[in-house]
């Protein structure tokens, strides 16, 4: 038995090492001075934090971060609110056509972004919404909508009928039922959805790459994608830029890891 346990831990540690070595690699690489030639994993002679400052400056990260935060700050509440209202309408109010609508949203989970992005660019160009935060915010909200509606609808249909019915007998209108009865017991579901939306918004790449031609309005990952092309050989600089982009999402992950888990395990997809 003792042998079995140590084999188990041995394999687990091995797998963890395989996951973590790339991180160790880029952290070590980022601590080298910019432009240094690296051979695999190597400890820098002198830790140089200025590589981060240089990457921040060269990568235009003040603007990229501002755009990323701005987009996420609007997308998350907007999309969560719309998904919550729709989930309520479909699950509790059972609006006319709710089955068809639910099916339509679920089908949307399989639509790849490639089939949307080409025409979306030209449609939004006509109305002046390319290169605009509003365009990206609405497009992301639309992309995330199928999962959000599915998520909130599933959550609301698991609420006992008696709870809603009792509130109605007390004379509560639809909106009051949602705000006073359902929302207070739905914070875990709403938090989870918000966390997932934040992650998808932060990590979104193709959409922003296409919609935002203006380098100052790109988000951190899309800016990073183009940064690579300019500094292919400067590994420390690229590593520092990578760490700058992943730091916020890693912090959010570690703080909210339970919400990530419950969201993903209910069938989330990576946007």
């Amino acid at each position, binding site marked *: 038995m003792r042998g079995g346990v140590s084999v188990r831990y041995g394999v687990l540690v091995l797998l963890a090492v395989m996951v973590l070595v790339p991180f160790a*690699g880029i952290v070590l690489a980022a601590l080298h001075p910019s432009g240094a030639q690296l051979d*695999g994993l190597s400890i820098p002679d002198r830790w140089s934090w200025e590589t981060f400052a240089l990457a921040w400056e060269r990568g235009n990260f003040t603007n990229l971060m501002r755009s990323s935060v701005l987009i996420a700050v609007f997308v998350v509440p907007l999309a969560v609110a719309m998904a919550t209202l729709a989930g309520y309408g479909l699950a509790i109010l059972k609006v*006319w056509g709710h089955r068809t609508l639910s099916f339509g949203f679920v089908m949307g989970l399989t639509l*790849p972004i490639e089939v949307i992005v080409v025409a979306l660019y030209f449609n939004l160009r006509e109305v002046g919404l390319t290169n605009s935060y509003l365009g990206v915010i609405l497009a992301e909200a639309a992309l995330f909508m199928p999962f959000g509606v599915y998520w909130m609808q599933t959550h609301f249909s698991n609420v006992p009928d008696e709870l809603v019915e009792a509130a*109605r007998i007390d004379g509560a209108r639809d909106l009051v039922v949602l705000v006073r009865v359902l929302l207070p017991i739905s914070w875990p579901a709403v938090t989870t959805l918000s966390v997932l939306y934040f992650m998808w918004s932060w990590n979104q790449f193709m959409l922003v790459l296409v919609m935002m031609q203006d380098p100052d309005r790109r988000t951190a990952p899309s800016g990073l994608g183009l940064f690579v092309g300019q500094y292919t050989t400067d590994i420390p600089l690229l590593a520092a830029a990578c760490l700058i982009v992943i730091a916020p999402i890693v912090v959010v992950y570690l703080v909210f890891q339970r919400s990530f888990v419950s969201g993903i395990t209910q069938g989330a997809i*990576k946007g």
Partner: protein
Amino acid sequence: MARDLSPAVSPPRAAQARGGGRVTDGPAPPPRRPGRRARGWLYVLPAVAVYLGFAIWPALNTLRLSLLTWDGILPAEWAGLSNYVKIFRDSQLYEAILHSLALIIFFSVIPIGVGLLMTALLMGKVRRGMTFFRIVFFLPQVLPLVAVGITWRWLYSESGVVNQFLDLVGLGSITRAWLGDYGLALVALGLIGTWVMSGLCMMLFLAGAQKIDPSLYEAARLDGAGAFRQFRHVTVPGVRREITVAGVITTISALASFDLVFVTTNGGPAGQTNVPGLLVYRLAFNEGDIGGASALAVVLTVIVVAVVSAVRYFTRDDES
């Protein structure tokens, strides 16, 4: 629907709707219920409007654009199905589709296997450190794929960690710039997908495994089943639904992959890692062939729907 409440207070909705006229300003509850299903549309409307306007409408437009010859500027010409014919004649486009199908092995099949292994290792009586391993294994899934791609590009490089490791274990003879290798670039790319997706699969399976009735393990143990056979005959069947979900999610990400390829190989060497997502982007926004890009996007969507349906069909079939 309010089974425990007195029917006089809360009659079935259907009856209410039919006799809508009868319900006037009676005693307060229930207030104007026939209108609820109609007014409820106000709640659904914002989501439907944004979804239709910014996802479904563009998707339908892509379908229309796929039938045109258009460079994005000059007036478009009707092209009929010629864009589609081109996809199956142009070896680059055709091969891109095959590459994305091959990526399913690395993004989906292997991660499901690794995910099951992780699940087996993380389950059971010994709990020390399991949360730590779970958090670590899932970490790659939350990172932007662009950053993942840049990191791996460096790991795979000639003087990178992968080659350093191979040298260390005496396999120095096979070292190379992996993402630049004509025959192995797609495999190297796929293994990045394995690194990203395994944790996702594990997380799904762990959640599924928690719902398995512990008495099943008890019974298996009494029948003399060891750890491996318990896993094989209790855990795996118990998480069959989660395996389907994992299969669907990872398959979509394999077929629709873009971010990773864009930053690691950009399709190279010599088109060996071209995938449809990359070519859709390139055709539309570098080469000005909107019709071709749209047709390829439509073909990709059809393949995604077909493969996802197949995954669901086969796993469901096994269950019954």
